[in-house]
């Protein structure tokens, strides 16, 4: 029922959240014409939209939209280590993912919950293997991610947003890191799942005696070009046969390479704009 | 993957006791040692209305008029002339801080290490970068205790050629009271490996290094062959086994354990199983006592 928000007037003690009384929105995973609810085929990805320079105050920032998932990320450049943490020669990455209260149908408590902290830790691990740490000795790089809306594949979108924001912040990285997620539902791999599909999978009623039923979701954060493909983050939940999981891993890596080109295009546009501005500035100064 | 049940395993019997056949009297803190005030008071004891009382748990050693109680497990105090193994923890201007398994980090000054290039290169290494070129954080060094400063910290020196940076190998930490005191610390054992029994409990097992490049500060990174690795692995497990059963560690005891483990054809990886450890320890003690 979410945490007790002292400022709000709540219903009587025994009240039940309205969301429990709603009829389960989706009976079956696929709709009548045997395609996914939003009409995509299993191998299609959602529409992606990437942009850079959303937050003027930050050293680097990015905004990523994948289907309904909307994530914005701000990077605050190498600065002195804030809290009195112990002395480390190498750079420290401070990562904080914050799901805004309105990002899910059921309102989330304002303070960061377990899922936020878990995602922050996983993202911190991934980014520490992407950034070239020994170029920023004794300093700290802060990556703050705010989730505007969770439309499925949230961690994958966060990884892409963080990679893009770091590139925009001119922080040295081995390669652009891109995230992708894949859902496995009765023997078929669904690429780039939406939140309804993820929830259907998580809440599906499973009869206990059919022990080896296979389902699961896989999220991969990857650097496609660096040393022919390096996986910086991989998380899988649910239970799957070993070779199905390996097949899912390959599918996710192809998705990463596709997304990589889109990220590259965004960055190159940004670089062109900066160079054009610089050229005008120089001409302006000469005349 | 072998899973054992704790209740099936033999109970670990510590075979305590220095070499001597009869066991010296053990005392616990607070026990009265003697009322006779003519004895001199040594370490580990204190006077209380003219009776001498033990302040640590250990065994009593009497040297004509002096009574001391030496504890069994003890942090390394340090004695001048001891050869010990240490790990560099900090690099400061013209000195290094070294962890030597004792209360305080010891100090190794740039002036008292013996540079292969001789005197004149000393000044060029003054700044921190030069120092780091010689010894970095984490490096292992074999050094000698030169002086004990009044706060208990040790001053180290690496004067002769056999001291200096240790090359490839593996380190093992045991309780310093188990290491047998003897002059020669660095032994090239017949089975083809070099073991440095640091007086501070750090034992370093490494392949035998040819004599002339012992004290250079460059490390050779070429691959150690497989059979040497097998002997080093077996030696390491023997030392761990002796320490686990509190048997005094000396070149002889390690070599006997090594030979016994070969006779009874124990695989190297099985040597750390409690029952195997028990057998080898018992047979080693019997072999040592003959």
């Amino acid at each position, binding site marked *: *029922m979410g945490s007790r928000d002292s400022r709000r007037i709540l219903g009587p003690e025994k009240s039940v*959240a309205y969301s429990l009384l709603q009829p389960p929105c989706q009976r079956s995973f696929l709709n009548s014409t045997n395609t996914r609810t939003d009409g995509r085929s299993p191998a299609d990805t959602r529409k992606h939209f990437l942009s850079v320079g959303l937050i003027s105050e930050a050293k680097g920032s990015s905004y990523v939209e994948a289907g309904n998932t909307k994530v914005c990320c701000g990077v605050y450049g190498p600065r002195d280590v804030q809290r009195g943490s112990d002395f480390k020669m190498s750079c420290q990455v401070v990562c904080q993912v914050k799901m805004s209260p309105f990002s899910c149908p059921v309102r989330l408590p304002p303070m960061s919950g*377990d899922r936020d902290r878990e995602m922050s*830790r*996983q993202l911190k*691990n991934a980014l520490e*293997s992407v950034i070239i740490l020994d170029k920023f000795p004794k300093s700290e790089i802060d990556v703050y991610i705010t989730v505007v809306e969770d439309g499925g594949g949230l961690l994958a979108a966060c990884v892409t947003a963080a990679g893009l924001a770091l590139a925009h912040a001119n922080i040295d990285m081995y390669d652009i890191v891109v995230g992708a997620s894949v859902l496995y539902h009765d023997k078929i791999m669904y690429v780039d799942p939406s939140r309804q599909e993820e929830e259907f999978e998580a*809440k599906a009623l*499973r009869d*206990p005696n059919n*022990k*080896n039923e296979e389902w699961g979701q896989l999220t991969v954060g990857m650097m496609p070009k*660096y*040393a*022919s493909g390096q*996986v*910086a983050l991989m998380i*899988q*939940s649910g*239970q*799957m*046969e*070993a070779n199905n*999981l390996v097949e899912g*891993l*390959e599918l996710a*890596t192809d998705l990463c390479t596709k997304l990589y080109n889109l990220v590259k295009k965004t960055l190159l546009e940004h670089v062109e704009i900066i160079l054009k501005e610089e050229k005008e500035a120089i001409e302006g100064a000469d005349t | *993957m*072998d*899973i*054992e*049940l*704790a*209740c099936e395993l033999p*109970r670990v019997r510590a075979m305590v006791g220095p070499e001597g056949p009869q066991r010296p009297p053990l005392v616990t803190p607070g026990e009265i040692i003697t009322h006779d005030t003519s004895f001199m008071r040594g370490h580990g004891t204190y006077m209380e209305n003219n009776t001498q009382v033990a302040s640590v748990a250990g065994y009593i050693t009497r040297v004509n008029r002096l009574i001391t109680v030496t504890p069994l497990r003890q942090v390394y105090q340090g004695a001048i002339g001891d050869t010990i193994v240490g790990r560099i923890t900090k690099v400061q201007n013209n000195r290094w801080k070294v962890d030597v398994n004792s209360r305080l980090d010891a100090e190794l000054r740039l002036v008292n290490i013996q540079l292969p290039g001789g005197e004149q290169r000393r000044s060029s290494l003054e700044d921190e970068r030069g120092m780091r070129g010689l010894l*970095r*954080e*984490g*490096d292992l060094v074999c050094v000698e205790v030169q002086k004990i400063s009044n706060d208990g910290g040790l001053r180290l020196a690496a004067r002769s050629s056999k001291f200096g*940076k*240790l*090359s*490839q*190998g*593996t380190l093992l930490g045991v309780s310093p009271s188990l290491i047998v005191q003897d002059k020669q610390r660095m032994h090239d054992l017949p089975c083809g490996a070099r073991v440095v029994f640091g007086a501070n409990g750090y034992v370093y097992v490494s392949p035998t290094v040819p004599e002339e490049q012992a004290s250079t500060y460059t*490390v050779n*990174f070429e*691959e*150690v062959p*497989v059979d040497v*690795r*097998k002997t080093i*692995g*077996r030696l390491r*497990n023997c030392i761990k086994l002796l320490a686990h059963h509190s048997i005094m560690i000396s070149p002889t005891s390690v070599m006997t354990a090594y030979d016994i483990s070969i006779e009874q054809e124990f695989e*190297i*990886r099985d040597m*750390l*199983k*409690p029952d195997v450890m028990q057998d080898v320890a018992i047979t080693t003690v019997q072999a040592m006592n003959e």
Partner: protein
Amino acid sequence: MVDINLSDAEKCYIIDGVKLGIRVDGRDRLDYRHLEIETGLVSTANGSARVRLDRTDVLITVKMEMDRPSPDQPNQGRLRFFVNCSANAAPEFEGRGGEDLATTLSAMMDRLYSSPYTLDRSCLCVVPGKHVKVLYVDIEILDCAGNLFDAVSIGVKAALWATHLPRIYVTGEDGGELEFEVSDNPHDTERINVSNAPILITHLRITENLTIVDPTPEEEECGPVQVVVGVTPSGLITALQQLGQGTFTTQTLSAAIKLTRELGMKIHTHLTAKLRQEESMENREIRGFL
């Protein structure tokens, strides 16, 4: 977990060893260290287990409470994991040091036991919608010497296996409130079916494409990136997660996943056999911590 810094010479020795198939203590790449297990040693808990993997020491207890079910799963019991890194496990754990490891570990265990097949939660329900049993699993880390995830996951499975829940009878109802009667006969208990509970296997990447199992702290220091893979007794891969700073190639990951399948099934059969054997021993003497 415990960060000791090693010299380059030692790291090179360890990495070459893994390439040649002989690790520092003689093990091969897929060998586990000696594992000791004991259940039922805490009398105040419904179920308990202690796992010792060489020096890693973990104590896991299961206690049952009654609670209201969560609204969206009215007839399902709950399983809650709490990890406590006590300061005596490692100096870094005191204060907030161990907290990061504790949250990672408990999040990992939550995900491992999140699927409904691991533990049949519906049999934990007493009155659907009103009262269910909640199992609080407390994991106490006594000593940490590498490979904590495997030791904890094996311990949790053993502890749940050894859990005896008192049977609860609904005796009657007055004015809408149900009355319960908990049977106080110690033998009238229910057991939890743990036959399908998964365990974790940690693969540490040492060189480009070589991964080792059951890493020691020194090996963890050489290769910072690990992948922790959950496996069920029937060989299905559950909660997989990559930890630490570093990257994997897809081939190494696939190899590790396939490896986990065989290794996992072997460990499961071995573990259940040992637990059954321990169960069948009459008047078994609890070894505990002696």
